[in-house]
C-alpha cells in the first residue's frame, strides 16, 4: 500500500514577545478600569456549542425562500453515553416572527410561545415542512412578500424588513416549558432522568435576517485554514501508523489521516508555552461595499469582516481577529496563535468562523495532533 507523500510542516514557531506586551496592556487597562473575571474563553469548546448559523442568502428577499444551517459542536462532558457513542443533539428551529416591535428579538417571545402551544404531534413529526417550525441541522422558510414594510431609518437609508429565526440545540430531549423566564418557552431534559439540562448541554439562540428590496450580500469566502502557514493537503495524507507520516512534524491520527503534530506544552506557565500560528484564508473579494451606506449618500463603507476561532483544546491568544475594517479596509495581521494543552490530547480540532457585519458567514475546519 503506497504511503502518501509526506508533508513538511514548518517547525513550531518560538514564543513571540506578544504575551509580555499583552500583559503590559492588561496592566494598563486594569489600572484604569479595575479587574473583572477570568473565565474559560469562548474559543474553548468544552460544552455543547452553536458556532455559527449560515443564512442563505444572508439578506432575505421578499417572497423568496431562505435556508439556515447550523454549525455546532458537542464538547460537553456528557456528550458521550456509557457506551462511548456520541449522543444525539436535537436541533429545533422556530420562525414566523417578522418585524417585531422596535426590532427587538424579545418582542417575538410571546408569538413564539403561542406558535409552540399550537403545535401538534403531527406537526412535530413533519418537522421542517412548516414556515414556523423545523427540526434538524438545516431548515428553510419563505420570507413574507410584504416584509419590507418598515419606514426607512433615516436620510437615504434603504427600507428593510426583519425576520427572526430562533433555534435550540439540546443534548437531550426538547420539551415545552411555558414557565420559562426571559427566553424561549422550552427546556432540554436528560432523556434518562428527565432532569433539566443546563447551558453546557442546551443552547438557545436567534439569528436576525434582514430583507431589503435592493440591497444584497454574499457570504465571505473562506478558502482554507493555515496552521503554521500551511494549508491542509488536498486530499489529506492517509496513514496506518506514525511511520506513514514521514515528514517532520506530522503524526498519524486514529482515523488514518496524517496531521500536523505538536507536543503538549510542558512549561510551568502558559505565557512560556510555544505559540502556533493559525490564519484563515479569506478571499479579499469578500470585502464588499456596504450597499446601504452607498444608498445613504454619505461616506461609503466596506463590510466589516472578522474571524472567530474555536478549538477543542489548548488556548488561543486572540479569540477573534479583524480581517477587513469598514474604514481602513483590509487589515494586516489577521492571524491568531494557539498554545497547546499541557497533556496529550490526541486530535485537536480548530474552527475559524468568518462573519461579515451584514449577516454573512462561512467557516473552515482543521485538525492537528497533540502528542
Amino acid at each position, binding site marked *: 500500500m503506497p504511503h502518501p507523500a509526506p508533508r513538511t510542516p514548518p517547525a513550531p514557531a518560538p514564543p513571540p514577545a506578544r504575551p509580555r506586551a499583552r500583559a503590559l*496592556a492588561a496592566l*494598563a487597562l*486594569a*489600572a*484604569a478600569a*479595575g*479587574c*473583572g*473575571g477570568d*473565565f*474559560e*474563553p*469562548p474559543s474553548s469548546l468544552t460544552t455543547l456549542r*452553536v458556532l*455559527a*448559523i449560515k443564512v442563505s442568502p444572508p439578506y432575505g428577499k421578499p417572497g423568496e425562500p431562505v435556508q439556515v444551517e447550523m454549525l455546532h459542536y458537542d464538547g460537553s462532558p456528557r456528550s458521550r453515553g456509557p457506551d462511548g457513542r456520541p449522543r444525539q443533539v436535537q436541533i429545533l428551529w422556530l420562525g414566523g416572527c417578522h*418585524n417585531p*416591535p*422596535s*426590532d*427587538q428579538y*424579545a418582542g417575538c417571545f410571546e408569538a413564539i410561545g403561542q406558535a409552540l402551544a399550537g403545535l401538534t404531534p403531527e406537526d412535530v413529526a413533519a418537522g421542517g415542512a412548516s414556515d414556523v417550525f423545523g427540526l434538524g441541522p438545516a431548515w428553510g422558510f419563505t420570507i413574507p412578500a410584504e416584509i419590507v414594510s*418598515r*419606514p426607512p*431609518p*433615516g*436620510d*437615504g*437609508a434603504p427600507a*428593510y424588513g426583519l425576520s427572526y429565526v430562533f433555534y435550540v440545540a439540546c443534548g437531550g430531549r426538547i420539551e415545552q416549558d411555558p414557565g420559562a423566564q*426571559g*427566553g424561549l418557552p422550552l427546556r432540554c431534559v436528560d432523556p434518562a432522568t428527565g432532569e433539566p439540562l*443546563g*447551558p453546557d448541554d442546551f*443552547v438557545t*439562540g*436567534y*439569528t436576525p435576517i434582514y430583507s431589503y428590496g435592493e440591497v444584497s450580500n454574499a457570504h465571505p469566502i473562506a478558502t482554507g485554514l493555515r496552521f503554521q502557514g500551511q494549508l491542509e493537503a488536498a486530499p489529506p495524507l492517509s496513514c496506518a501508523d506514525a511511520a506513514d507520516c514521514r515528514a517532520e512534524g506530522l503524526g498519524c491520527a486514529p482515523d488514518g489521516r496524517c496531521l500536523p503534530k505538536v507536543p503538549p506544552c510542558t512549561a510551568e506557565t502558559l505565557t512560556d508555552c510555544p505559540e502556533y500560528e493559525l490564519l484563515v484564508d479569506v478571499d479579499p473579494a469578500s470585502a464588499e461595499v*456596504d450597499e*446601504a*451606506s452607498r444608498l*445613504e449618500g*454619505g*461616506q461609503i*463603507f466596506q463590510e*466589516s469582516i*472578522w474571524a*472567530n476561532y474555536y478549538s477543542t483544546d489548548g488556548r488561543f491568544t486572540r*479569540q*477573534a*481577529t*479583524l480581517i477587513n*475594517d*469598514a*474604514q*481602513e479596509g483590509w*487589515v494586516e495581521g489577521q492571524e491568531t496563535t494557539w498554545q497547546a494543552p499541557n497533556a496529550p490530547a490526541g486530535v485537536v480540532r480548530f474552527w475559524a468562523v468568518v*462573519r461579515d*457585519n451584514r449577516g454573512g*458567514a462561512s467557516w473552515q475546519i482543521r485538525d492537528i495532533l497533540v502528542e
Partner: protein
Amino acid sequence: MPRLRHLARAFFVATLGASATALVSPPALAQQPGGEAPAPPAVEPPVLQGFVEAPYPPEAEKAGLEGNVTLQLDIDAGGQVTKATVIDPAGHGFDEAAVEAAKKFVFQPARRNGRPVAARINYRYRFNLKVAPAPAAGPDAPPPKPKTLLRGVVTMGSSTDALEGARVRVRPLAGGAPLEATAASDGSWSLPDLPPGKYSVEVEAPGYEPLRVEEEVSAGEATEVTYRLNPAGSGFEVVVRGQRPPREVTKRTLEQRELTRIPGTNGDALRAIQNLPGVARPPGLAGLLIVRGSAPDETQVFVDGALIPIAYHFGGLSSVVPSEMLSKIDFYPGNFSSQYGRVQGGIVDIGIRSPNPDGKYHGLVQADLIDARILAEGPVPLLKGWSFIGGARRSYVDAWLGPVLEQAGTDVATAPVYYDYQFFLETKPSATSTLRLGVFGSDDALKLLLKDPFLEDPGLGGSLGFSTSFSRLQVLYRNQISNDLRLSAELALGTQNVTFGLGSLFFNLDSYPVTHRFEVSKRLAKGATLNVGQDIFYIPFDIALRLPAPPRPGEPDPGPFTGRPPLVQRESGALYQPAAFAELELQPHERVRLVPGFRVDYTRETKGWDASPRFNGRYAVRPEFPKTTIKGGLGVFHQPPEPQESSRVFGSPKIKSSRAMHYSFGAEQEITRQVEISVEGFYKQLDNLVSRAPAANNSSFEYGNLGSGYVVGAETLLRYKPDKRFFGWLAYTLSRSARRDNPDQPLRLFQYDQTHILTALGSYRLGRGWEFGARLRLVSGPLDTPCSGGLFNSASGSYACLSGAPFSRRLPPFHQLDLRIDKRWVFSSGARVGVYLDILNVYNRQNVEAVSYNYNYSQSVNTTGVPIIPSLGARGEF
C-alpha cells in the same frame, strides 16, 4: 469729671490685622523658612475711614464703669454698615451706644481680587473713662510738671484674666528707639514719661496672636488701655461674602484650600464637589455629577454663566478648568434660583478668579503623572488698567499608553490625550464695574484600530475614534451701579464638537453655541430687591450620524448591534431655547428672607413653553452667633428633551419637556465659629419623563412623556470651615430614587440610586509646610441589572443577555480610604515649591463596580474598581 476716650478705631485695626492673618499671610510670616505656605492675597479686609464716636452712657459714666462691646458688622460693597449685631454685650447702655455709632461708620469696602465686595467683620468698641486731671495746686505751688503716661493691662481673649509676661513694644511713629514693657502677674504694664505723639504698639505673647495698634499720647495725660490677645488660631473672623446673599435654599461654596486639598481628587476642584452631600459616588473613575438621585445629564455646569458641555476630561481624571484659576464653585443641589433652568437636577457654577491685583507677574507650573499645567497672570503691558490670567494643561497619558497599546497589536493613530486652555483679560472701567474678555476650551481625542474585535459584539470592532472639544469666547460685564442697582451681562460664542466612530457607525456633531445672560438687580425699597433677566441658548448645528437606535434604561438588552440597520441622519439646524426670569428678594424682617421667582422657557424644537414658578425662604431663628437658620423651598423645574429624543429620526418631535417639582426643608446651625451643621430633607416629584413606548402601528417604538418617578432623601453636612490648620467635613445623604417608564409599570429603583452616601474628610497643616489629609467614603453599592442567561446571536457570534428586572440587584457596598500628603517650601523671594502624594484606595479595597459574565452568561463574577493608585505631583509658583 472723668473724660472719655475711645480706643475703638485702634482696636478695630488691630483685630482685623489679626484676623487677616488667617486669610492673607503677611510677608514676614511667609518668608519664614519651612513656615506655613501663605494663602494668596486675594482678600483685602475693609478699612475704617469714617469713625463715629459713641456718647458715653450716662449711667455707666456716673457709675465709673468701663466696657467693651463686640459687634458684628455687615458692610456692603459700598462701605456702608448695613447691620450691627451685638455678639459680646457689656450692658449698662454700652451696647446700644456702640450699635448706633457703628451704624454710622464708613468703610473702604473689602475687596476680593480687587473688586469691592460685601464683608462681615467683628468689631470691638471700647469705652474707657479718662482719668480726671489732678486738682489744681495752691497758688504757691510750682506749676505741675506735665505727666505723660501710657499704661494698661493685657488680658487673655475676651476674659479678664491677666496675661502675665506679655511684651509691649512701643515705637514712635516719628522715629526713635522703641520702648518695651512686660506685663506683670496682674497683666498690668506701664511706660511713663513718653514724649507726646503717635506710637505703634505691638503686643506679643507666646501662643497668642500678636496685636498691633496705634496710640496717641497727649502731653500731660495718662492714657490707659486694655489689650486683649486672642489665642493663636482663633483670630477674629473676617468673612468676605459674595456680593449678594443666597437666593437658593442651599448653596454650597467651597473655598480655595478645600478645592485643592481634598484627598483622592488629585487637587481637582470639580472632583471635590463629588464629596458634598447630595452627590452620589460616580462609578469607577467616571467624571459624572449625580445630584440627588438625578441622572448626570440633569445637572449643568457653567463657567461664569456660560454653559459648558463637559466638566471632566477622559475618565474624570481632571476637570476642564484647572483649580488654580477658580475663585469659587457654587453648587446648588436643588431648588436653585430662577436664573438657572433647562435641568431638573442640580447646578454647578464655576467662577474664574480675577488676576492678582498687585501689579506683579505671577506664575505656576504643576506636573503629575497624568498631566502638566502652567498658569501666568499679571498686568498687560502697554494697556493700563488691564490684567490677564491664562493657563493651559495637557495630559501625557498618550506618552505611555500609546506604546503599550501598540505593543499589544493595536494601531494607534491618536493615543488618548486631552488638553485645555484659558485666557482672560480683565479691567475695571470704573470703580464699580468689571469687564472681562476670555477664551477657554478643552479637547479630548482618541483614535485606534482595534485588530481584536470586541468579543461581545465583534461587528463593532475596527476603527475606533472619539473626540470631544469645545471653545468659548466670552465677554462678561458686571457693574454695581449704585447700592440699589446692579447689572451683569454675559455673552459667549463658541464651538462644540463631538465625534464618535466605530467601524461603519459614526456620530459627528458640530455646533456653534451662542449663550447670553443678562440680569438687572434693582433695590425697590428697603428689604425688597427685584432681579430680572434673560437667558438665551441658541445653537446652530450640523449633525451626521449612522448609529443603531439607542436603548433606554429599562428596556431589554437589544443584543449585539452587529448587522442591525443603522439609523441615518444628516441635518443642519439650530436649537433655540430662550428664557426670561424674574425674582424678588424680600426681607420683610431682618430675620426673614423670601425669594419668589418665576421663569419662562421656550423650546423651539418642541414648540413648547414651560413656566416654572419657584419659591425659596430662609428664617433666622437666631441671627447672631451661633446662628440658627431654617430654610425651605419649592419650585418647578423643566428640562427639554435631549436632541436625539426630539429628533425626527431617532425620536419624536412631539414630546415635551420633562418636569420636576422640588421640595426641600432644612436648618443650618452654627456650633462654633468654625463648625456648623446643616440638615436638609428633599423630595422631587418627576413627571413627563421621556421614555419609549410601542408606536400606534406596533411596528416600532416612539418617544413619549410617559415616565414618572420621585427622589426623596435627607442630607446633612457637619463642616469645620478652613482655619489656619484644619478643614474637613462629614457629609451623609440618605435617599431613594425611583422611576417608571410608563404608567403601567411599577416603580423601580433608578439607575443612579444610592441609598447611603457617607463622606468624611479632613486636612491638617502639621507645620513646616507639611499638610496631611484623608478621605473615607462609605457608599451603598451600585445597582445592576442581572442576566439570567444568554441567547446566542449567530450574526455576531456572541450572546445577548437575557436581562432580569432593570437595576433590581444592588452590588456590595463601596468603601475606600484616600490619603494626601503635601509639602511646601516658601522662599524669601516669595516663590513657593510643593510636592504632593495623593494615594487613592490606600488599603486596596476591591470595590465591586459591576458584574462580568462569561461568554454565554452562565457564569458571573464581580468586577472590581480601581486598585491602590498613588499619584505624585510637583508644583512651583511665584
